[in-house]
């Protein structure tokens, strides 16, 4: 890398993270300096649930369907981890037929999983 050198290349990311934090904390600090700070009444600090009294604990149990979606997502996210390096070399790889067949088998096996999920109706909202 010209200019920054090997180590400087990634320092850029660090600098930008610092800028992001600066933006967040800067906003907090300016508003902390400028905003009025009245004493808060107890009623004002109730959770906002459209004026109703809060019923029961917030941290209720959720349906397992969220978990199943996240599960399918994890599997397909991991799949992209293998597809991207393959896509990078696909054009230049000498034996393009092999490259195509390999990925076709890989994706077909995963599509079987998708079809299974489809068949078992876990992709539905019920």
């Amino acid at each position: 890398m010209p200019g920054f050198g090997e180590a400087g290349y990634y320092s850029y990311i660090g600098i930008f993270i610092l800028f992001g934090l600066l933006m967040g904390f800067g906003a907090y600090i300016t508003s902390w300096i400028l905003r009025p700070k009245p004493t808060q009444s107890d009623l004002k600090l109730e959770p906002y649930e459209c004026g109703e009294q809060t019923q029961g604990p917030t941290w209720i149990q959720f349906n397992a369907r969220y978990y199943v979606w996240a599960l399918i997502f994890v599997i397909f996210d991991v799949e992209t981890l293998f597809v991207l390096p393959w896509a990078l070399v696909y054009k230049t790889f000498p034996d393009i037929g092999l490259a195509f067949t390999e990925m076709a088998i890989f994706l077909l096996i995963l599509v079987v999983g998708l079809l299974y999920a489809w068949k078992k109706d876990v992709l539905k909202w019920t």
Partner: protein
Amino acid sequence: MIVPLAHFLILSLIIFCIGLYGALTRRNAVGILMSVELMLNAANINLVAFSRFVSPQSGTGQIFAVFVMALAAASVAVGLAIVICIYRNHRTIAADKIDLMKW
């Protein structure tokens, strides 16, 4: 590369030990799975560090790290599904309460 290889290994060792301790002692089943993830992450740091210092051009360690990541994701998916199953049947996720197989 100014940081020596040994320091990467020591970092990964510390995280591995923390993960191992968590996996052995946590009662919450989800916590145990998270500790296992910590151990796998530590192993990955090791693999990548060796890849960079020993065979920087072939990248063998990186390839193994990719496979470890895929397997970690698969294992956590199945592990959590088992936890859901246990939770449904026993209404608990405390690992030491699940002792039906002991007797």
